[in-house]
């Protein structure tokens, strides 16, 4: 039993995200020279401890949501070659530790940035707009009616199943649910399109050097779309699960 509480992850202002970027602000631990880009000292070539620039900076990418997957993979593989502990088997303990931390941060960063949704969630978490693993599980107002109806059908299906009826009795209900699932999947596609627009808005704001207000608006919009998306996705998943259970 754990007597300690898991502390809710605080916003970025409290968080020391020290495991995520190149270019540490301090001088090279080995030669005292200025740290170079790309996780190695420009002067002596030694591996450096992780900095705090975040996942995008880790890949030397601008903090933009439109990411070319193939380009990201190329960067990931190139960095894997350089940072992996296999390259440091014969190095000193400090360098081996740097390699372990950097390559685990690399894998974490790649996992987070690969998928567009987790990429956007990471961005918002880093800017304190969103808390890790937290989404508002409220029905968006415009969907309230449909969700209410859907939940009723799901209840009906469950009680029909418990009562032992199948086949013809539930087939009409199943058809209705199937239709609803399709409708929600279409909505999901629409939300994904909105998310794409949100990405573009953020990227334009970043490119144009927009002020905090514009960036804040873009992030708030992204957050709202992400919450809605997560809600609809859970809905589709639960309908699918119920239909499979019934099959």
């Amino acid at each position, binding site marked *: *039993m*754990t*007597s*300690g*509480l*898991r*502390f809710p*992850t*605080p916003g970025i202002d409290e968080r*020391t995200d020290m*495991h995520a970027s190149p270019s540490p602000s301090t001088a090279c631990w080995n030669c005292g020279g200025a740290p170079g880009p790309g996780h190695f000292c420009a002067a002596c070539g030694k591996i450096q401890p992780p900095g705090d620039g975040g996942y995008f900076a880790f890949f030397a990418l601008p903090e933009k949501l439109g990411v070319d997957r193939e380009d990201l993979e190329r960067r990931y*593989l*190139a960095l*894997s*070659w350089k940072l*992996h*502990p*296999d*390259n440091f*088997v*014969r190095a000193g303990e400090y360098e081996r530790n740097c390699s*372990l*931390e950097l*390559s*685990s*941060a690399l*894998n*974490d960063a*790649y*996992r987070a940035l690969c998928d567009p949704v987790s990429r956007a969630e990471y961005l918002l978490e880093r800017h304190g707009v969103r808390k890790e693993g937290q989404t508002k599980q409220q029905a968006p107002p415009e969907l309230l009616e449909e969700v209410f109806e859907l939940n009723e059908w799901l209840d009906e299906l469950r009680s029909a199943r418990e009562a032992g009826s199948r086949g013809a009795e539930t087939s009409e209900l199943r058809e209705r649910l199937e239709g609803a699932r399709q409708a929600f999947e279409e909505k999901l596609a629409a939300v994904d399109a909105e998310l794409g627009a949100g990405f573009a808005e953020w990227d334009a704001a970043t490119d144009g050097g927009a002020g905090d207000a514009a960036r804040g608006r873009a992030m708030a919009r992204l957050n709202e779309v992400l919450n809605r998306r997560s809600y609809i996705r859970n809905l589709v998943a639960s309908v699918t699960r119920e239909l499979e259970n019934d099959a």
Partner: protein
Amino acid sequence: MSKAVGIDLGTTFSLIAWMNPASGKPECIPGPYGTTLCPSVVSLDVDGRVVAGEAARRRLLTQPARTIYSAKRLMGRGVEDVEDELKIFPFRIDPESRNVIRVRLGDRAFTPPEVSGYILREVKGWAEEYFHEPVTRAVITVPAYFNDAQRQATKDAGRLAGLEVLRLVNEPTAAALAYGLDRAQRGRVAVYDFGGGTFDISILKLIAAGEGDIYQVLSTCGDTHLGGDDIDNRLLDLAREEILRDWGLDLAPHSQVLQELRKAMIAAKHELSDAEETTVRFLLPEGMAYVRRLTREEFEALIGPIVERTLAPARQALRDAKLKPEEIDEVVMVGGSTRIPLVRRRVEELFRRPPHVELDPDEVVALGAAVQAHILTTGVENALLLDVTPLSLGIETMGGVVAKLIPCNSTIPASAEELFTTGVDNQTGIDLHVLQGERELARDCRSLARFRLPVEPGLAGLARIEVRFTIDANGILQVRAKDLRTGEERSIDVQPSYGLAEPEIERMLIESIDFAEQDFAVRQLIEARNESESILRAAEKSLADPQSAELDSGERARIDAAIAALRLASEGEDYRQVRARIEDLNRETMHLAELLMNRAIASALEGKRVADI
């Protein structure tokens, strides 16, 4: 620097391999019996000596209470984990075992890492014999599904055998590495590993990057109780049933006969890999003979259900990798059971392409481990392995629920951070419980470690301890904590739930390393003495030859001195001295050897005309 080797520490057999610079290819090293397969069996002699490998396997029947096989199944596991194994395997668990199992061999108890250590030391000895120099560094392979405790136990075994474990590599990754270093294009590889006792399937992605090839594991799945042994059992059952039916003879009490019958059935299995039919001829007690013609068709019908059971995990691994069977570009076969034509056919049907069978399926994992050892020690960077962690890592939270920190199939190294605080005023520590597994509740997952984070007493919720969990490139957990209020870093003494604590390992190490060095020196000494004996005999014989009269007195005196010096050295304990004196004597007798040789040639030529030569 000594040579680095690759070792496949298997459930039924272990192998050792190295990268031969002459051929540029990895090669398995044969042992004294000529085979590269070392039975993973350990036995305790009546005089207290431990033997491993073939010598131990031969004692399975005569000294079953002092002999253990399949010890890999016990690695990194607790007593309650192995209840199922105990139904199948006759392990004699020491009643005093707690979080580390101890197995009784005769009057002594051994931990699984010690048993595996003896097997590792045996194959290490093969390599030392082969190279004529000590071997100290190795890459050891582990099943991809091995959890933290099992990996740690394997690393401990390596240390106990006097080996620096350069890296633990997943078996399927090693197999892929042994294959196709140069044909590596962008491709997806399925590694189908059907061994003696376990089945494993892994999906890898091969990427030809500018710097070399990257092997990335996408997913892995398997069944730890499915293997060639099941096939052997099925055949044995068939024979037993027929013998009971035809003669009313129940073989259950005749363990020796059963063992012999099993061997006969295994031989039939092997033959049916090439032949369309075979005949088992087996002499039963009381002079009866069991003669049974077995066609491949009947054999395949018998074992069909066993082979089918490998296909579900294979499909699961594909699903986890988000791939369809036809998206697999290469299939690599590992394990002796993949020699069975039916297995090859089923695999071909599933993946819709013929599997690779060019390399010996028993050797392929060890060969890959040798390649990785070569890469790690020479810095020849032509391949990089990106393995994944097979199980999710999490911590127990309120109500016994597991909070996942690192999901399964994450590329390693991987890490996660969590912030912890106190729940009540003046709490002096926070207890953490780290688990591995996919289930929701802590009690259904695998306990890895428990430890306590010390906290300065204060108001509840004031403490801010950041804990960083890192799974290293071997798949082993490391934990570090940082007090965010003071900035103080702490290393954490993680007490493994299942595994040897550091002091225990230290003690075993001191014992074993002494032994390991002694072992090597003793073996070298015996060999050097043998060699010394034969060279002394040869020298004396030569000196008795009339031809030796042609030596001048100085030469003769130097030879006599060298003989005396070698005799003296051979009575001593230092094999290096013996070797050096052998060299001396060889050098001093060079002229004598020439004289004898000339005489031999002259006499051979006598009476022959020049034209006949």
